[in-house]
């Protein structure tokens, strides 16, 4: 009896034993915190101690919090600006690099280089570049082209696009290389056939290149929105949410609730859960639109 059990389940047991340590790590670092944040959000807490079950009270309080609506509106603005500034740039870069006859390698390396700069160093660096006043690097630069000097990060109107430019600088090159791989997968005979059919350069670009990138672009679009929706340290370091809440994001508000003002972990969790729900909704919409063709 014992031997047959071993024969039947022996390999199963070894398999589970070998991955047990990793399972524990996943439980501790990934799965349990996700569930815990839901539980925590339904309680009133003092520090790490849960005082009492309050149902959805934390959620209602968040809606009434004076910083919530600015943060929610800004987060949507970040996403829209990042689509406006950051979505087409990598596609353009990929097409251009693919068309280059000389210096292709150099271009690939150069556009990817910013991606190697740690995110935190990037925002510190750009905070200096965007310094207002006549000693700021970008102010000197735009001034030589006759554009008046700006106050950049201190301007409520400019602050979000400026932060998005910083993010685009860091990530556009890496995304461009993904598109580039997509371009290199296009069958060259398609172009030759199009030439024989008399299609001009624009015609080829419109009817072959762009349609072939379409699926990839759709995937990367939603991934970009999901990533930007969680924007946190860029405004935290560059402006601390200012001027006057003009750049505060939802994730930054979570951080404030939890670690900066009154250590209200329950309220922070409630907001986290709300962000997660928004992102899951986005993912579901994406999956609905994007049938399993890719991935």
């Amino acid at each position, binding site marked *: 009896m014992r031997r047959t059990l071993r024969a039947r389940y022996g*390999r*199963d047991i*070894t*398999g*589970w034993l*070998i*991955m047990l*340590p*990793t*399972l524990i*790590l*996943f439980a501790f*670092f*990934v*799965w*349990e915190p*996700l569930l*815990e*944040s839901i539980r*925590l959000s339904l309680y009133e807490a003092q520090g*790490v101690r849960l005082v009492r079950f309050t149902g959805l009270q934390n959620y209602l309080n968040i809606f009434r919090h004076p910083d919530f609506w600015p943060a929610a509106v800004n987060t949507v603005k970040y996403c829209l600006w990042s689509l406006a500034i950051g979505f087409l740039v990598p596609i353009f870069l990929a097409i*251009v690099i*693919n*068309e280059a*006859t000389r210096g292709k390698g150099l*271009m690939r390396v*150069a*556009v990817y*280089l*910013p991606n*190697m*700069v*740690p995110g935190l160093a990037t925002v*510190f*660096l750009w905070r*200096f570049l965007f310094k207002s006043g006549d000693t700021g690097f970008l102010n000197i630069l735009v001034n030589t082209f006759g554009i008046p000097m700006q106050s950049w990060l201190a301007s409520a109107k400019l602050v979000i696009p400026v932060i998005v430019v910083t993010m685009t600088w860091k990530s556009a090159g890496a995304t461009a*290389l*993904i598109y580039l791989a997509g371009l290199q997968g296009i069958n060259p005979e398609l*172009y030759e056939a199009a030439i024989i059919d008399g299609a001009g*350069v624009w015609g080829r*670009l419109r009817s*072959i290149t762009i349609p072939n990138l379409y699926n990839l672009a759709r*995937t*990367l679009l939603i*991934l970009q929105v*999901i990533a930007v929706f*969680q924007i946190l*340290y860029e405004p*935290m*370091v560059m402006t*601390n949410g200012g001027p006057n809440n003009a750049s505060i994001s939802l*994730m930054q508000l979570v951080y404030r609730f*939890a*670690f900066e003002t009154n250590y209200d*972990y329950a309220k*922070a*969790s409630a907001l*986290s859960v709300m*962000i997660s729900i928004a992102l*899951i909704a986005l993912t579901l919409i994406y999956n609905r639109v994007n049938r399993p063709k890719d991935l």
Partner: protein
Amino acid sequence: MIRFFRKDDGVIRTYDLRRPGMRAIYIAVYAVMLIVVAACVLPIIWVTLSGFKDQKEFLRGVKSAADNKYYVQFLPLSFALDGYAESWNVMKFYKYYLNSFWSVLGSTVCALLFNGLMAYVISRLRPRGHKIVFALVMGSLMLPATTSMVPLFLNISRVGLQGSFVPLWLAFGANAFYVILFKNFYDTMPESLLEAARLDGASDLALFFRIVLPLSMPINMVVIIYAINAAWSDFLLPYLVLNNSPLETVMVRLFSYRTSDRIKDIDIIRAIVFSITPPILLFIIFQRQITQNVVSAGIKG
């Protein structure tokens, strides 16, 4: 010039470039690309050059003899390394470098070992129920990780691991993205290799260390490079765990400068240079592996 206009692939071909209009557009596109390349590289050069200046030269510029006004210049007055050396010593960056080194080393080992083992089980041993585990791993890839920061931090402080590298190391052992990279690679490994070792009486665990891991060098390199870079750049969890402890890493230190008034601007500039030097060196060495694998790495959700 002739080689420049010879082109047998992509959208534009040699035959298009015979037309002067197309030629002009092609050159214009090259010019735009030149600006893009400059925009990518210039900020990094700017910060490195600025680090050579002193505080006054950085903030106000250099007094011009002609009109007695101050002008900010791109190049520093001198390329002496004294300023860098001073900041390095005053800010105790050797200490943070050493801390970052230990943090990166442990994280990379954990990333390789734990994710590799799980991928090996899911890909090769396939015990009953492995599909559920894989679904859970894939699911966590879809869910936003940053939102569980608060309960994760509470977990860590509950088990008393604050002020220690251990939670940071182990966090790299639970990375869904690395598990999938490993699994995809192991899936392509021929079963005959494993079967031969099994006949020699090797256990399933020994098989992983003796056969699977050594035969997976390409994917190991990818994960190692990504883990090094991610561990070096990570700061949010490290900040919460290590803040005000003797184990602060380079990024934790840099993060704490965001609100500090006591630190001079020029010192922050030099701190930025210190913090970007290792990843850029890594890039220069492994440039090929990094840019070629960006495709698999980029689509991670």
